[in-house]
């Protein structure tokens, strides 16, 4: 029973912490650009404001437009809930493995893109078309990267992968390095960060994710934004916890969970700072440079998988 409680707690931590990570990235970015920036808690205030504002829907939009935010939010959240945040051995792992996680994210993206096309404006279709291009190239790379991990651990369950990595100790596997590189590139693309997409732009020619949300307002927009924040946190946790699983809670004691939370927060702060630094030094790419970027990710992931099956099987 306590296992399900911890799983529930962890599931609730994702939406609770997600705005904080975004706030932290923005703060560091502002500092790096010699600005003071808003408080790290600003995203919470934004969400609250959006939630109590009146919601407007275009005349041309159908029912799907109003349902999509809920589907996107819930699918993203459920995907996140399966990623171990503070502890291992949670029963939710049996509900969904890594492939289901990728599938749930794809479900969210499917409805996000459809919602973008629903109002019948040029921007929405443009955003949807570009989003599907990016995801078409990013998803195989993502799956190949997680397959590398799954084949090493002989399991597609994220917890088993982490447990296997923990048991391995500080063993340096070439396949992990490749998979790590691929997953970082995929995470940048999937979360719509620079250099693939710019989350703070509303320039017609460059936006992808924002173009699909252009028609949204009020609580619908809040849910969409929140889902995007959860997705960023999800990828962050995936990177820090799968490749650097040390410090995650070993049992369900208060101490272990507390230290697990503290360690993962620390890891996320470092990752967020790195992301902010990366976004400060890099510029956004042209859209048709993105396939090259993502092909690199796919290549890295394939190299990881091949180096695993050729070099490491049986080792």
């Amino acid at each position, binding site marked *: 029973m306590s296992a399900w409680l911890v799983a529930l707690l962890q599931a609730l931590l994702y939406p609770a912490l997600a705005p904080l990570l975004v706030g932290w990235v923005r703060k560091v970015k502002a500092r790096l650009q010699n600005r003071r920036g808003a408080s790290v808690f600003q995203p919470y205030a934004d969400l609250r404001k959006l939630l109590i504002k009146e919601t407007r829907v275009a005349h041309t939009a159908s029912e799907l437009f109003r349902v999509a935010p809920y589907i996107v939010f819930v699918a993203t959240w459920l995907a996140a809930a399966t990623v171990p945040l503070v502890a291992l051995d949670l029963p939710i792992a049996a509900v969904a493995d890594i492939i289901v996680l990728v599938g749930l994210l794809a479900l969210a993206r499917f409805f996000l893109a459809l919602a973008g096309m629903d109002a*019948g404006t040029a921007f929405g279709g443009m955003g949807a078309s570009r989003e599907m291009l990016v995801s078409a190239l990013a998803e195989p790379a993502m799956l190949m990267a997680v397959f590398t991990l799954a084949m090493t651990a002989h399991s597609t369950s994220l917890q088993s992968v982490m447990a296997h990595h923990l048991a391995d100790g500080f063993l340096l596997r070439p396949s992990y390095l490749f998979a790590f590189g691929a997953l970082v590139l995929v995470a940048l693309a999937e979360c719509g960060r620079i250099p693939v997409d710019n989350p703070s732009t509303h320039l017609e020619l460059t936006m992808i994710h924002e173009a699909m949300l252009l028609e949204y307002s009020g609580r619908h927009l809040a849910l969409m934004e929140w889902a995007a924040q959860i997705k960023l946190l999800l990828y962050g946790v995936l990177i820090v916890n799968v490749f650097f699983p040390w410090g995650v809670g070993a049992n369900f004691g208060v101490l272990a969970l507390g230290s697990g939370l503290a360690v993962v927060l620390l890891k996320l702060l470092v990752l967020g700072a790195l992301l902010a630094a990366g976004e400060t030094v890099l510029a956004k790419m042209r859209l048709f440079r993105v396939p090259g970027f993502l092909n690199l990710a796919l290549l890295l992931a394939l190299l990881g998988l091949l180096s695993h099956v050729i070099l490491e099987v049986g080792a």
Partner: protein
Amino acid sequence: MSLYFALLLAGLAVVLALGSAGVALFAGREPRILRVASMPLLGLAGLATTFAGLFALLGDGSASTTLPLGLPWMPWHLRMDALSGFFLLVMGLVTCAVGLYGPSYVRGFERGRDSLAALGGFTGLFLVGMLLVVLADDAFLFMVAWELMSLSSYFLVAFQHENAANRRAAFLYLLMAHIGGLAILLGFGVLAAFGHGFDFDSMRAAELSPLWASLAFGLAFLGFGMKAGLVPLHAWLPEAHPVAPSHISALMSGVMLKVAVYGFIRVVYDLIGQVQWQWGVALLVVGSVSALMGVLFALMQTDLKRLLAYSSVENLGIIFIALGLGLLFQGTDHPTLAALAFVAALYHVINHALFKGLLFLGAGAIQHSAHERDLEQMGGLLRRMPWTGYFFLVGCVSISALPPFNGFVSEWLTFQAALQAWQLESGVLRSLIPIASAVLALTGALVAATFVKVYGVAFLGQARSRHVRRARPVPHGMRAGLGLLAGLCLLFGVLPTQIIALIDPVAELMVGSGVPQAGAQGWLWLTPIAPETASYSAPISILLLALIAGFAIWWFRRGKVRRIRRCDPWDCGFAPPDPHMQYTATSFAQPIRRVFALLFEIEESRPQPEDAAPRYRLKIGDRAWGLLYQPVARAVESASRRVVKLQSGNVRVYLGWTLATLLVLLWIIS
């Protein structure tokens, strides 16, 4: 015992289908007959087929009988086992939906000039042909039924023959079907020569040397692969499937392609028997190419039914990837893994039948009420025909392999089988399988893009033409047909353990091993290999999704600002958006077209500034035509031009040739 009952039911289905064809002959005089008698009989035949399949799957062993028809020394052998039962189930479910959908749909043809007797008659014969292929237990009946299936579907493709393009498509289909049929016949010839008999029992007993076995496999792969529309032998499929009436397209894509898969499994697993892993490699390569090329071409199409036909190429590719994995594992002595891959393939077979049937029927519904097949003219249909729209959405989500619908389960199982590649000894195979799974992942993502395009352009946004703006909801019967398939898509997605338990006897029969672990943790948990290796709980996922979504909707609507105000969409402060400003199907696909430009033959002409009437032209061709079909056609043509020289028109010369041929043949055999 239940197997005999199943066989009896299947016989009843054949009789009903024949009856459906028979009464349709009178539809020329009284058009109503097609609607009130022929289509309902077809639906009943589908129902009988479904139950025959279910009884066969739940029963044990096999049942066979002979009919005093056919050649004097060779009566027709019929046999029912789990494999036949499974494919009967696939056939029956789609036919039931067609039976519900058909009566209102064919009404649209009543005022046309096309022959209703031909439509109803050949539809019934088409079903009879498919049923007999699955039931046949000797090569003779199999080929007769196969030809019946091919020929009757040829007439259905040529149904609206006033259109030259339709006649051309039908001829191409006939040609390819016969080349394929020839390869199958030769394959049976090899087996019959070693087994000394044309019935399947003697073929099973035949001892083939590896070389001859591989030859028989190659011929079967060629013949059945051509029928299944595998690249590069797919060219007929996107031509033929769209031009038939939509309920026939659903049967052709949903069921007839599966009959080809049945034939392949029957010949390779059952009749040849001694599986070699190299065959798996061939399947894996061809399947991967088909899946990727199929989806890329689907993405480029603007004709809805053509798009769906290309997507069938892709799905058959996925099925053959899974079958290839199965052969690979079986050839290297991993029976449990082989069974897993085999079950994944069969799961995808039934899934594809369900969602492709649904999508083709949905396309038919659009054609029925909006008279449009071209995506570029559609838009906003969700508000004109909401039920069709929601059912079509289920089809789109299912085919895009998204949880918690059925397409996801089979793709998940295929990935799980591929992830067991580490158990293989050969390093080459270990690295080949991940590449195939990368292709599968890329395919999956591109399918999602394709169906976002389809749904977004057809059902969302604003109507792009006047007749689409005037579309009206379809009659209840058509809605019921769509609803049946949509419900089954969800059911097969949510209850995978039960479905796998149903498929398991087929795997035990063909592969010699089942997947006993799949439901070992209870019906909630799908654990194909072991609970710690992989597990997925579709019922709990959908429960959580529904619970949280319900809670979120309640939570966000309970406040003071629950009201939603309607307003104009954002127009950047310029003119209000009109339907022509929307992204079209072509523009949606443009980024992906540009990225994969090398794989297509693109002819594009952009409007110039000085053009009086600027037009943008885009033609996307299939490289397979230039690389394979045209050279073959040219070779055939030049060969026949040489043969023409023999034709002097003088009967004495002809008699001379005949005599010479006879002498040469006598010399060879003596």
